[in-house]
């Protein structure tokens, strides 16, 4: 299905697939220091789906991921976001994570002195505590870690070091995917995961994500370029411009953008604005 549908303010399910509703964003508006960045986002994500969000620089892509993950710098001025029917915006960043939101950072930071193992043990057990479960036994935890490391092809030596300290760009991104594997989120947001990666690293990271994809989880893949979507093939592609989703389609939309750039979409939006 190559036809591109233009969607206004109504919630969308362009390909008519039916899954379980997981994330629901309605008319989301957000600003930072009085500057309006998101101007009414609507998005429905069902379990098992991968949604790509593309758009030119400054469209609000990273703001959307930050607002969903609970970064405090942004003020949400209107709209709602629910995860499994629960109000996400009302939750702290840590509660969102424990409810199943995971943000793979564009620039994962280095935290010297905090070991990757200790960090993940804390994160896993905090999530279990939230779910009313007992903390994991140390040996079980180490077994799980080994298993997941193999699964995402992460070098064992990395976990004995401080979190991301001295990691290459590719290692940092792979560590994000490894954490994702450990925490088993319902909704993962990949914020420009492809930035700064060479083709081999990109392939490894993408393979990790593809292995983790299943019918119960969903992904929002934020990217400027189509390249990543060759590896992580999305069910839906949305174009974000000036803080709104101005176009949605399937994977072919990404290819069209790669070919034609973003200018035609900008022109279309401006033209529509004039008519209205």
């Amino acid at each position, binding site marked *: 299905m190559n036809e591109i549908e233009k969607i206004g303010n109504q919630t969308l399910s362009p390909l008519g697939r039916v899954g379980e509703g997981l994330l629901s964003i309605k008319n989301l508006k957000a600003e930072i220091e009085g500057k309006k960045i998101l101007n009414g986002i609507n998005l429905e994500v069902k379990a098992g789906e991968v949604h790509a969000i593309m758009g030119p620089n400054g469209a609000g892509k990273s703001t959307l991921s930050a607002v969903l*993950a*609970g*970064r*405090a710098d942004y003020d949400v001025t209107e709209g709602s976001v629910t995860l499994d029917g629960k109000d996400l915006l009302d939750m*702290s*960043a*840590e509660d*969102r*994570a*424990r409810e199943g939101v*995971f*943000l793979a*950072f564009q620039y*994962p*930071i280095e*935290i*010297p*002195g*905090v070991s990757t193992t*200790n*960090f993940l043990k*804390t*994160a896993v057990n*905090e*999530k279990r505590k*939230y779910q009313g479960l007992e903390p994991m036994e140390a040996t079980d935890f180490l077994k799980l870690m080994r298993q997941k490391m193999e699964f995402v092809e992460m070098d064992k030596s990395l976990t004995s070091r*401080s979190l991301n300290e001295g990691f290459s760009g590719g290692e940092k991104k792979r560590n994000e995917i490894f*954490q994702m594997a450990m*925490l088993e989120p319902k909704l993962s947001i990949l914020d420009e995961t492809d930035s700064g990666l060479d083709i081999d690293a990109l392939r490894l990271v993408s393979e990790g994500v593809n292995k983790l994809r299943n019918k119960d989880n969903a992904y929002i893949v934020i990217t400027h370029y189509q390249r990543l979507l060759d590896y992580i093939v999305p069910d839906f592609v949305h174009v974000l411009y000036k803080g709104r989703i101005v176009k949605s389609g399937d994977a072919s939309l990404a290819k069209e953008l790669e070919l034609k750039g973003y200018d035609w979409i900008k022109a279309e939006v401006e033209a529509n604005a004039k008519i209205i």
Partner: protein
Amino acid sequence: MLLENIKSEYNQYKNQAEESAFFQLREKAFAEFDKSGFPTIKNEEWKYTNLKSIFDKNFKSTCVSSASVKNLLVDSLFNSIKANKLVFVNGSFNPELSSIIEKDSAIVISNLAKARKENTIVFDAHFGNYAKIENESLNAMNTALMSDGAFVYVPSNKKVENPIIIINVVDANDMNVLSQPRNLIILEKNAEACIVESYISVGVNASFINVVNEIYVNENAHLEHYKIQQQTGESYQNNYTQIFQEANTNINQVTLTLDGTMVRNNLHFYMNGKNCDTLLYGLYITEGSNHIDNHTRVDHAMPNCQSNELYKGIMKDKSTAVFNGKIMVHLDAQKTNAYQRNQNVLLDPEASINTKPQLEIFADDVKCTHGATIGQLDEEPMFYLRSRGIPEDVARKMLLNAFADDIAEKIKIPELVGLLEQLIEEKL
């Protein structure tokens, strides 16, 4: 008041003292002390540390030691660590509680009073040479009235196999205690040693401990030197350390100040030869209304030396801290590399730090940097941890521990580092 206590103690000593060069030195020191008196906040070096609360009290030198000292030692960080231990209680050497396990009899691990008689040549060659008494009235006071202290002598090409731990116990069960330990440490050419100074205390009364360390490190020698201060109760400490380095020496110095009502450290390095390499690390954690002041000074007097300093502080409640780090690059000290950083985290709105990194450079071909930061924990690491489901309070603890452990880990006694990290975690 303290001044009267000191004067009367000195007069008592003087009436019994026999004429000797040592007595002459003490006379000179007392005259110096008498002339300059205690430092006040009008003295630039003491601007942020007011000793008035000490001087308004009565203190007494005493060799009284109660049964609780033994328990204190059992509970100390060092109980299970294999080391040479020299224990001083209220400044007096306690042979029963001490243990020397070093087998090489050429290495002297002893107390100063004994060494003055048995190692006279070394003692006379070094004692009083490094810690100046002019304009340093607390050094002068120590020199005039010191009780006892550690004496370590490592001859050329010898390596002390196990760490030497100098444990200073203040027992303030019976009265306000004054003690003035004096340590003299000599590493000859190509010698190697690891020395730990420890300060612990017990008892309900106040204590004032005024320490002077003189450390001489001869060519090509390597010294690991750690200071671990954890006196509790109403405890005041002034700790002066002068380390004199000859050419090609290598020193790793770590100062951990984890407790104490008021602690003032004066840590001085003098690089008297080429190719010295000195690392200085410090961690201070203050709480309640405690006050911790670290004054460091590194004198680069000769070319091609390197110093790297990192001091970190965590201040809680209404506590205060001071960092004053001076790097002095002398005219002849070309090709000096000197780095200094001071990082502070204030955990409560009423906690405070006065920090003053200072560089004075008289040579022209040098690389020097210095800087200080004061703030709360960084937001970015905090958000990263929280975004993985770790609650804010747990995340803060993790980051604070990492910040502090970074310094504790500079100590090269693994079992001690483990214990220290536990201790730090409990404190934070």
